[in-house]
């Protein structure tokens, strides 16, 4: 310090000023402690730099620095979650480009150069990362994909990826897969940019998740700012690291506060409530590690790493290489991995950080190792996010497990082994019969009889069956069997399209009875309760619920949520927002998962995710079609924090495995379907259908207005527009739901369905 000239002091004062304003960033303003005074002091020294004698100045700086250091220690001593959020948002925090510059030896950006980019918020780059082994350098090629917040660069959009940005990310993931190099993801996003233009915010994230579920290369993700769905778009990795001063959350604390406080649009959200939500959401690295939504924390300096924190970059490089090593080694053999991990562990315990590696590990995988990689990935995600309660059941767990495994075997034999045999035999019989030879006839006939005995004709619902309720008189309608309670009122309602189409006022008993809640003039669908679908969509008495013992919980201990949950359970007499059941449609057995609005607006948390996955697996083992009927979903349940978010990759993985097994996964959206679920396990289905008058999207109009600053037309999310944008494959009329579903079951899907 003593050697510093006055000019150096000027530069040094700038860094001091940065340090003070950084503290102000963290504390949300200069009101905290003596920040204001410190800031003014630095300012004063800077303006009057030449008024002081050198000695005086140095003394001043010295004491000032001491005070700033003291303030920094004070702040670091107790960092509240909201302050961590502020750290992440600070302009002084490191960005992806800093990482590319400092952790990688060289990199070539793909598909972009600053502003000239399909989406400057997303960066993809081919990069080289080095490993030092006994003073020798080894080079690894990797694909780096991540968000660039571009502190101060407006065009980066703060790291909010547009749909086509995520599409670009997916494209380069596939390049990496083709070339067999690992992918390093860097997540720096407050959330995805909520616009529906093709390929669509939700749909593209869903597509990314669907592909990542089975991408055949090691993937490592590093989270600094993990804003819900936007983070998941490049977040489904084999190893998830997180910066110690990063946050990973289901929603921004401000967003959560607006929902919790029921703040009207444009209203001011109280700061106290925001801080409260930040705490309740359990969004810090430590929280997430405890919740099991990340694998490891990368230590930062106490107040977070800034753009020129070279020590941190060194550490990060080491952690990325090590994580990749581990993922690669796990696919090879468990013993190799354990040896490696143990060695590293002992090294980590040493006080001095050493970025040297003992051995060089190649990151290329053989095909069988890739299979194992996917297997491990599947297991990993299935074990995550289990924040639900299991109610005790009278019969023992072991018995259930036994039954599950038996059933698995039964269906394997029934539809796998035997069916293959039966198909072969059938083929032979057909070939022989087609000869038309009289000599063969007696032979084949007795064979045919024996065959029919061994393999009774599958109960395929015939198109022309007399009992077929769909083909019955148009007067023997379902409304005679189940009438919505909404119909019990002698009054009329006006169709919202009355002015446009001249619809007459509808008598409520007609509307909710015979008309199935559909305006007969214009086809507008009035919402109906989910029970209507349970009664009218499936064969009478065929609905058998399962997994009711899995119920929603308050895994984060979110204050005030217990009461809300209790109320929902009392009101609906159900334990979660999802109903999973076996059912039949005109004799075809299928598995159904139904998200419904009455329970916390159909939001998805751990219990819902778990039940969905189990339903999906059930469909896979029993070789039945799988229908996800979305009566309504409001997104991921914010009260479960990242335990809710993690359901997105979890469920998508299960869906992917189901579809790959040759099943049929149909998603039907009704009423309102938004956010996380649409952006993952629903949006990834090849067959998505909207019921007329339903709304489908990523974020609601309010969030769009608040994040993009532009308004959207009232029919922005309507099914018809979703169809126009290519997000769904069709629109069904509620009155034809059953018929269309039956036709879909008969004509679509993979080869592994039990009736095919």
């Amino acid at each position: 310090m003593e050697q510093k000239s006055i000019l150096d002091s000027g530069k040094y004062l700038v860094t001091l000023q940065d340090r003070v304003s950084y503290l102000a960033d963290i504390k949300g303003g200069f009101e905290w402690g003596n920040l204001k005074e410190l800031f003014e002091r630095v300012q004063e020294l800077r303006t009057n730099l030449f008024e002081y004698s050198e000695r005086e100045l140095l003394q001043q700086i010295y004491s000032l620095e001491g005070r700033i250091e003291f303030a920094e220690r004070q702040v670091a001593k107790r960092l509240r979650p909201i302050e961590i959020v502020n750290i992440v948002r600070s302009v002084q925090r490191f960005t992806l480009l800093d990482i590319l510059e400092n952790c990688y030896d060289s990199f070539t950006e793909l598909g972009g150069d600053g502003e000239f980019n399909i989406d400057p918020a997303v960066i993809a780059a081919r990069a080289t990362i080095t490993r030092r082994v006994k003073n020798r350098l080894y080079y690894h090629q990797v694909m780096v994909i991540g968000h660039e917040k571009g502190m101060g660069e407006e065009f980066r959009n703060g790291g909010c990826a547009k749909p086509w940005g995520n599409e670009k990310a997916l494209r380069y993931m596939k390049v990496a897969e083709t070339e067999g190099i690992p992918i390093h993801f860097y997540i720096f996003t407050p959330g995805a940019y909520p616009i529906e233009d093709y390929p669509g915010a939700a749909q593209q994230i869903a597509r990314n998740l669907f592909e990542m579920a089975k991408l055949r290369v090691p993937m490592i993700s590093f989270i600094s700012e993990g804003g819900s769905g936007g983070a998941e778009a490049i977040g489904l990795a084999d190893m998830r690291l997180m910066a110690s001063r990063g946050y990973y959350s289901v929603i921004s604390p401000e967003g959560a506060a607006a929902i919790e406080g029921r703040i009207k649009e444009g209203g001011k959200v109280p700061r106290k409530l925001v801080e409260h939500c930040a705490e309740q959401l359990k969004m810090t690295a430590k929280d997430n590690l405890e919740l099991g939504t990340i694998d490891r924390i990368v230590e930062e300096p106490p107040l977070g790493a800034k753009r020129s924190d070279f020590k941190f970059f060194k550490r990060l490089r080491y952690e990325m290489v090590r994580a990749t090593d581990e993922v690669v080694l796990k696919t090879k053999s468990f013993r190799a991995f354990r040896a490696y991990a143990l060695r590293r562990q002992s090294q980590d315990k040493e006080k001095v950080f050493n970025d040297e590696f003992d051995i060089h590990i190649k990151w290329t995988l053989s095909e069988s190792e890739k299979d194992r990689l996917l297997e491990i990935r599947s297991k990993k995600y299935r074990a995550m996010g289990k924040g639900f309660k299991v109610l005790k059941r009278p019969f023992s767990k072991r018995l259930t497990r036994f039954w599950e495994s038996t059933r698995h075997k039964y269906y394997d034999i029934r539809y796998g082994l035997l069916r293959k045999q039966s198909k072969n035999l059938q083929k032979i019989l057909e070939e022989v019969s087609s000869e038309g030879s009289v000599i063969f006839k007696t032979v084949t006939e007795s064979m045919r009889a024996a065959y029919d005995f061994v393999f009774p004709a599958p109960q395929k619902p015939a198109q022309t069956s007399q009992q077929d309720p769909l083909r019955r008189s148009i007067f023997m309608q379902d409304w005679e069997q189940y009438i919505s309670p909404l119909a019990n009122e002698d009054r009329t309602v006006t169709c919202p399209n009355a002015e446009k189409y001249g619809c007459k006022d509808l008598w409520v008993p007609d509307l909710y009875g015979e008309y199935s809640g559909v305006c007969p003039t214009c086809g507008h669908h009035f919402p109906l309760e989910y029970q209507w679908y349970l009664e009218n969509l499936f064969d009478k008495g065929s609905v058998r619920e399962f997994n009711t013992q899995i119920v929603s919980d308050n895994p984060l201990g979110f204050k005030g949520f217990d009461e809300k949950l209790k109320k929902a359970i009392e009101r609906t007499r159900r334990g979660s927002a999802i109903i999973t059941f076996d059912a039949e449609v005109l004799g075809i057995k299928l598995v159904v998962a139904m998200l419904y609005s009455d329970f916390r607006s159909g939001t998805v948390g751990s219990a819902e995710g778990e039940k969905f996955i189990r339903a999906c697996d059930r469909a896979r083992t029993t070789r039945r079609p799988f229908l996800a009927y979305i009566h309504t979903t409001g997104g991921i349940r914010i009260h479960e924090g990242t335990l809710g978010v993690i359901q997105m990759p979890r469920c998508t993985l299960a869906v992917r495995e189901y579809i790959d097994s040759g099943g049929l996964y149909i998603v039907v959206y009704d009423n309102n379907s938004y956010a996380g679920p649409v952006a993952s396990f629903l949006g990834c289905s090849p067959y998505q259908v909207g019921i007329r008058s339903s709304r489908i999207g990523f974020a609601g109009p309010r969030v769009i207005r608040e994040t993009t600053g532009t308004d959207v037309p009232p029919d922005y999310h309507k099914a018809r527009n979703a169809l126009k944008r290519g997000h769904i494959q069709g629109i069904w009329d509620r009155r034809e739901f059953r018929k269309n579903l039956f036709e879909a079951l008969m004509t679509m899907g993979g080869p592994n369905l039990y009736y095919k």
Partner: protein
Amino acid sequence: MKKEKVLIANRGEIAIRIMKACNELGLDYVVVYTKEDRASGHVKKALKERGSQAVYRISSYKDPNEIFSVADHSGATAIHPGYGFFSEDFRFARRAALRNRPITFIGPRWEVIRDLGSKINTKRIAKSLGIPVIPGSDEPIYSEIEAETLAEELFLKQKEQGIDKPSILVKASAGGGGMGIEEVNHLDVFRQVYRRIQNYAKRQFGDEGVLIEQCMRDYHHLEVQLLCSQHKEVVHFGTRNCTIQSTGRQKRVEVAPGFDPSIWEYPFDARKVLDDMVKYSIRLAEKVEYDNVGTWEWIVTRDGKPYLLEVNTRIQVENEISACISRISRQRGPVNLIKEQIRSALGEKLNFSQRHVSFEGTSIELRIVAEDVKRGFAPWCGTITRFEFPDEPWVRVYTHVPQDEPYEIPTEYDPNLALVIVWGKDTQEAKERAKDFISETIIDGKDSRGNGIITNLSYLYEKVDEVLRF
């Protein structure tokens, strides 16, 4: 018994006939009318008889909400739908019965209207009772393979019967009134037509069910008039022949009874055919416990086979020709079916049975319409300046066109001018009287361009000669 008040939810001549029936039964009534109908006879008559509080202006005869509002406001206890509009709307009848303030719907129970309102359903019930129906599907077909098999079968059957040019009809099952029907003359074009109708049905009615039937040619269109009560009484009032129709299948001349072997020779036993039709009609009515007036529509082919077409669960325009030839032994004067309909709907017993009913003479109904028969029965619009017709004891005329002042035909509705019911002691006399009536009727009028009125009088005159001839 409480004093009943009937809301007449219709217009024109049927409204007038219902008013008359109410007057004869000593019932109170209210009428409704739209802006276009303010000068119509039914409004004038109601104003004259009941004053302005019995007359309600509404925006449409077809909006149930308005009708029920009027009913509640006027304190009506029953609604007579007349024909058309709500007469066969089971939803309207159901709403009347199920609302918080129930109103008697003058017509059959809503369940009956619903079940017989569908031709397919009627056909199925009829088939199960051994009543002959037109060969073809008795439920909507959704699968192309099934449809083609049936079409092939129908063609084959016709060939076997030696029918010269076999053909079938493909119809939208949810359709009606001649919409969505196409004829197929050759099996090769069937698939194309089937798909077209299926698409049309889906677009138009939201249900892609299709019906396939043998196409009948060379037939007569007959009807059986029934009157039933809520006390399981069933009485028939003979048959009618409605074969003379416009190109749009609108009836123009109707005759009761259905056939007359004393004036024409038929290639079959006409007496037996009529008896069979009546017998079958009653069988179906008893099965569904029919409880009001109704018309069973039949077609009779040249080989003397009757086929049930459909059931009209309402009073029909031409009901009075059946009434005209019917006599009830204990009652004086002719029967009034509208009166009987109202009584039956209000829950009364018929107080006569089939053995009290006898038939006398022939009655012909002529529908005088302002239309250009030569130009495909195109309706004529304009103002009627003069409307005169002979007043004879053997004729009854129902018209909403005033005789004392010019009348502008509202363009919103069919240009029906008058219904003329002529009676004669036999068919010959009825025919002569009908022709006399037509010759002495004078209708003058002008359209907006000053051209003279065009009516179907001369067409009717020609057609009267042909009635009942196969």
